[in-house]
């Protein structure tokens, strides 16, 4: 899809999202908000995986940090301060990403996949055992955050805040991807050794990317906690890390808009399957297996899909 076409689609999509509250009911709006939150999450991972080539299987850890941060900043039966809690949650996720990043970036390739998974599980494990975090049952947030006239618990305020965050995140990542920093990340993905031999301090670049991705994941986690009013250790776990990775690859890696598409597909699929059966993870697993076998370049590249199907029939 060429540039003009893509811009047109994005603008139309944005318009649809803005107009949605007019003709959609609460259920659909909640679903749309959930998709948008997952889209932010998926885009953040796309920065790591699609652009920098770092396959992290523990990205949910930072999503969870953002979510639990809101819980910790929310008074027991009141609403958290939006202006304070949102930046603090994002900062907390960024700090967590900094610490974890300093450790995991000392390895790469398969080892990186394994250690990110392990550290993600460390968060999960710690949260299940920590009473101050609610333990394995998790905890509730009884009111959505608010500040002055903006109460996320009323009207469509939450929906529009998430929409603004999505648009802002998209633009931020888009600009980043096309900046020299983004180009350097792509270079690292292509041939890290050559990048170093040219004089790039690749470790620094990777750490910065890791922290930015973690911060954005924390933002998504914050909204997730605000939307559902509940946090539990699963938010740190490998299931979510795997799911968001799936979203990135479904959408085609390295194209920031692709992650939005991937998030939409997976959330809608989960919703649809969940309505069919309580054992929806089984068809979801089968779908993922089939998708990996058939879609090497993700949904955002239809030509490649067609080519793959043709090749498999012939070969």
């Amino acid at each position: 899809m060429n540039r003009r076409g893509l811009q047109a689609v994005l603008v139309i999509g944005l318009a649809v999202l803005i107009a949605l509250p007019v003709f959609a009911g609460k259920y659909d709006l909640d679903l749309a908000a959930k998709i948008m939150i997952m889209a932010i999450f998926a885009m953040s991972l796309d920065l790591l995986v699609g652009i920098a080539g770092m396959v992290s299987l523990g990205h949910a850890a930072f999503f969870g940090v953002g979510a639990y941060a809101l819980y910790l900043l929310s008074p027991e039966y009141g609403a958290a301060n939006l202006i304070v809690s949102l930046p603090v949650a994002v900062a907390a996720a960024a700090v967590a990403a900094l610490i974890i990043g300093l450790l995991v970036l000392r390895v790469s390739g398969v080892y990186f996949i394994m250690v990110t998974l392990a550290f993600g599980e460390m968060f999960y494990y710690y949260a299940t055992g920590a009473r101050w975090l609610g333990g394995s049952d998790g905890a509730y947030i009884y009111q959505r955050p608010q500040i002055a006239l903006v109460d996320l618990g009323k009207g469509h305020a939450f929906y529009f805040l998430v929409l603004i965050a999505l648009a802002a995140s998209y633009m931020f990542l888009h600009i980043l991807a096309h900046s020299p920093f983004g180009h350097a990340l792509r270079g690292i993905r292509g041939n890290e050794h050559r990048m170093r031999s040219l004089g790039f301090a690749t470790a620094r670049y990777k750490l910065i990317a890791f922290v930015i991705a973690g911060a954005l994941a924390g933002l998504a986690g914050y909204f997730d906690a605000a939307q559902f009013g509940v946090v539990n250790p699963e938010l740190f776990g490998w299931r979510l890390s795997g799911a968001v990775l799936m979203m990135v690859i479904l959408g085609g890696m390295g194209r920031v808009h692709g992650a939005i598409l991937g998030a939409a597909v997976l959330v809608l699929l989960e919703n649809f399957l969940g309505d069919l059966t309580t054992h929806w993870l089984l068809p979801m697993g089968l779908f993922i297996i089939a998708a990996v076998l058939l879609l090497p370049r993700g949904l955002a590249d239809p030509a490649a899909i067609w080519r793959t199907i043709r090749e498999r029939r012939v070969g």
Partner: protein
Amino acid sequence: MSDPAIFFLIQVLNAVQYGLLLFLVASGLTLIFGIMGIINLAHGSFYMLGAYLAFVCADATGSFWLALVIAVPLAFGFGLLLETLLFRFLYARDHLYQVLLTYGLILVFEEGRGLLVGNDVHGVPVPALLNFSIPLTATLSYPAYRLALSAICLVVAGLLYLLIQKTRLGMAIRAGSFNREMVQSLGIDIGMVYRVVFAIGVTLAAFAGMLAAPTTSVFPGMGNQVLIVCFVTVVIGGIGSIKGAFLGAMLIGLVDTFGAVYAPQISGMLVYMLMAAVLIWRPAGLFGRAAAR
């Protein structure tokens, strides 16, 4: 011997037993990665499936040993089937795709198990033959089954050693990876090698699950639990190295067991702290394995 010394001995025996079981699982993982270059997230699921299979067979036949005799070949056959139907499409693919496909596989295995056998926790009775404890002092004794378990694992480790050091297949394994020409020049069909190696890897994990079932009971989360520790083992020992898997597993066995006794509050985090320490001081793993592909 005095009581504290015996107590210490018991902990060492426990550590060794846990380490040996872990080694079985980790060696399967490292074999599959070392030969075929596949990272398999569903490897923990094989452990879980082995345990549930042992439970079902033992329940049906009333004999743990009979259950093993049935379950091990089943596991091997399952491994052959999986390779033929699914895993051989992963050989040339990026690790990312391997991760995702095996992630989907975990979901299928977990839900599938839930549908077929349910999500309950089950105990598997220790076989009557070994259902006694060896007294060590007036108050302390050690379960015979655990000793037998360690012994069986050692035998398997020994067999693995023989396989790797003394057979042509083992030569291919030691050559460290998919050097197809070399393997084919040994007169071995590469496709068959991959299929058999994969099935061995699956069987190792499943067998470990079967053996562990009487001591840990059979529960849904056991697969993922062992997978994480297995990954940490491999990070410490270096992937692709059986020797590294052995030493890494032993180290974790010791750290975990003694940690639970002397520092129970943080014992669960000790494994992660160990991994963090290795990352900080020896990122190439304790045995300086070359960077993973």
